[in-house]
């Protein structure tokens, strides 16, 4: 648990650092007539790297180890069952926390065969990005999207089945529409959305 706490703190610190740096960059860009030299693609790349690292640490060094030693398992209804959140839930919940923090940046897991419909692609851009990632999973799909007058930069990174916990759950869940996932398959994507003023 210590390790989980430590990695959580590390994640927060890293994230804040990135966020602040980015925020400052954006702020200073507004002040200056010319934006400072960092593209939203790079910001999304940083965030994605941190997310991936955290989730990997959580999956391999916390969930897998604790499950192997029989201390505690990961389960979907972890609150009632006194268990650990699944790695996917870990990422979703952290994304919720980031959203609630009001920084503007958001990320979430989406897939073409989600267990819950709320995790289906919300827009055509997302659907197409996921479809293209299925074909070419090496690079993220990026683009500018809009909601009303608001514009956002969106980067969608492929998300692979990093552990057996991922495919185990998706292949056996009663609500899962697709049950033939294999390890290292692209199960969906991480959609990172950054508002553009």
């Amino acid at each position, binding site marked *: 648990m210590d390790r989980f706490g430590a990695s959580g703190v590390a994640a927060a610190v890293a994230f804040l650092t990135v966020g602040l740096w980015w925020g400052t960059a954006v702020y200073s860009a507004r002040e200056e007539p010319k934006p400072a030299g960092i593209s939203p693609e790079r910001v999304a790349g940083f965030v994605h790297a941190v997310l991936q690292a955290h989730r990997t640490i959580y999956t391999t060094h916390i969930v897998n180890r604790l499950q192997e030693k029989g201390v505690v398992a990961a389960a979907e*209804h972890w*609150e*009632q069952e006194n268990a650990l959140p699944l790695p996917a839930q870990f990422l979703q919940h952290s994304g*919720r926390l980031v*959203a*609630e923090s*009001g920084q503007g940046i*958001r990320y*979430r897991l989406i897939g073409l065969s989600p267990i819950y419909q709320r995790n289906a692609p*919300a*827009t055509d851009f997302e659907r197409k990005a996921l479809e293209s990632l299925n074909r070419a999973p090496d690079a993220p799909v990026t683009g500018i*999207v809009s*909601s*009303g*007058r*608001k514009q*956002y930069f*969106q980067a969608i990174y492929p998300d692979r089945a990093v552990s057996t916990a991922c495919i185990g759950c998706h292949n056996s869940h009663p609500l899962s529409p697709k049950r033939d996932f294999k390890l290292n398959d692209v199960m969906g994507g991480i959609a990172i*959305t950054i*508002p553009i003023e």
Partner: protein
Amino acid sequence: MTRLPHKPASSTRGWRLRTKLIVSMLLVGIVPLLVGLGMAFWQGSKEIHEVSGESFKALATEAARKLDILMAEEIARTSRIATDPLIVRELERRRDALLGQPEATAAALGDLRNKWEARDPAAVKALTENPLARLLHEYYSGARSEPDQLIPQVVRGATKMLFITDIRGNLTAALTTTPPFANGKSPWWQGAFHKGVGQLYIEDVHFDQRVDTYVFSISLPIMDSLRYETVGVLHRVIDAKEFFSPSTHPIRFGKTGHVMLIDSRGIVMSCPILPTGVSLSDNSLIPLVTPMHPGWTAAPSDGHGGRSSSIIGFAPLPETSRATNGSLDGGSWHTFVWQSSDELFAPIRHLFTWMTVFGLIALSLLATLGYLAATRIVTPVRQLQQAAQSIGRGELRHSIEINTGDELEALAEEFNRMNKQLEAAFAGLTDQVTLKTQEVQYLQRSTDQILDAVPTPVLIVDDQETVQYVNRTGREAFRLGDDPDAVGRLFEILPVEPSQQQRLRQELWKQRTAETPSAPLPDEPAPADQVRDPLAPRAGAAPGGRQGELHLGPHVYQYQWFRVSGRPGESDRIGLVLRDSTDDSRMQEKLVQAEKSGSLGVLTAGIGHELNNPLFGILGLGEALQEERDPARVKSYAQDIVEQGKRMAAIIRDFTGVATRETSDQRQTVHLEREIEQALAAVTGSLGTPELIVERHYAGDTTVSALPDQLRQAFTNLLMNAVQAMKGKGRLCLSTTVAGDSVVTTIVDTGSGIPKHHLSKIFDPFFTTKGQGEGSGLGLTVARRIIRKFGGDIRLESVEGAGTSCIVTLPVIPPPAPSPKEESWTASERQALQQPSHS
């Protein structure tokens, strides 16, 4: 034959045995019955608890699952409205308008709000009939829904409000006119908007005044087309009872068993019995039934107002609970399955009732059979008991008839045999008793005859001073009737003076309390060995007041107490022997007088003899003087005459003490040693004993209470005998020793002693071994008489040829305090000899 007092046979005893037998049988039956009943009841209750608890838990879980799905479906239906692209786009537009021209939009909204609250038809129309509102209507009526996504009629009826707000909580579209305009500050709006992130928010049941019922609400955020942020909130208010009752109310079992839905505060959302919105009757129940996992509990109350112990199954609605009040911690919903314990435990109560009924039947059977069995056992036992009582009284005449064919019959036969043997034994005993009775009667007659033949009165007195027996002499002396058992009071028969009565009573009391009857003194010779002076007091009469004198009219009686053993268990009685000593006293007085006269004769002869020598000396010297011329010789003769005269005067003076003060009858304190010395002087003076050696070993100046003249006379008599026995020469030892409360005077001579055959007669009067004119034969008699009068006694021990010891015992008066003068008494013989000369 002695018959012990016999208790009458109690008729309850047989009943007691029978009771014991019946009770034993009942106990043997009842205890296992009760234990079995108790265990069955306990085990049954436990099983019912377990089974019911598990069933209720399963039912609660199932109901929770069903209700959870119901809620999930409803949320899904509602979320279809919230994700409608038309609605999303319209709300995005409104958001952009709000953010683009904040001031103008705010003013327009404020105006619209006032009009809405005033129910202005234009405002109402603007909000209930705009495109969004129309979409809501379509969804509500099912026009825009797929056939399988239609809102069921029940749910439609239960939906009390359905409206949409913008990003500030302002009413944007509504189905009806009931919703409030500004909702930005309400918890559900803030919960669902959630800082723009958006989340499902289910509000707990509460009373809504706008729709006038208990409702819960579902608030869904309406996300923008990117699902990036919230652009509005869809709010749906549902009547809790109407919504849930179709799902919960049909689940009934038995008469009272049902399922209800409560929230984590214990507020009832749906229950067939309790109205929606009330709290459970027992707050202590709430933590028991609202954990986040299914289970069952045996609670002290039922939550419906009953205080009886209840079994309650419960389970949470997991998905719904996750969204209630924003989170799991904010509250949760639970199912509650309960059945009245009266109904629940009815089977076990029926079982118990039936077991009690069967138990009572078994009990009465046991009692009846026990009574019969006990009677069968007890009847012969009681027969035997009565027979034993008859045998005890010696009245059993017939043999016992018991034909049970078991040990009791054998016992009855033994009783019969025993009875026969006892009868035979008693017959012999009766003869023996008759014989012994005759013997006793004979002995009694003999005793009466012996006692009647005794010449002195004998009385037997009991504790109460009642005379129980008087012998014939007594009856004659006291002029009583002929019946020896004539009863009378002691002092009615002996009418003595009150002072004597007092003394007799004290003596009687002493006799009664004395541990042992009067025993002879150790030094006293056995009466059989003693030749008794019939005039002397009775030998064996113990000193110390047991023997005394009674004056009854002219008669003087000497009396003595003795104890008569009482019957077993009764106290001893006291006997009284009286002896008429009137004649004895007179005779004794005469004797003393005669002795005095006799002694006087001897003394006179002695005095004459003593006086003769100096007298003849004086006569001779006188004759010589007549012829003598020599003045020196004359003077010498005259001196001799004077000497002789002095000697005569001394002789006379010494003898005067013996015969003087005859008349004095008052006892005085007498110095014993002085009296002995005076007596010795008188004896030696009269007999002339030049070769007599006198040794004295005195204890000191011992005082006794006596008449000095008589005491001196007694010692004179004793010393005279001693000196005469030694024929004037030899060794005379005089000694006094004090032993306890008496003084013992010993006179030991070295005379010829007394022959054994004379020793028994020496105290007899007129017995003498001396020649005619030498002794009267009364010396020792008188001496003993005197000594005994003073409470003492004389004893003689003699060895023929070696000498005689005369031992005189007298009660001593303790000296007041020793003085140097008295101590010097024994120191000087000369002083002792000179003492009497002063008298």
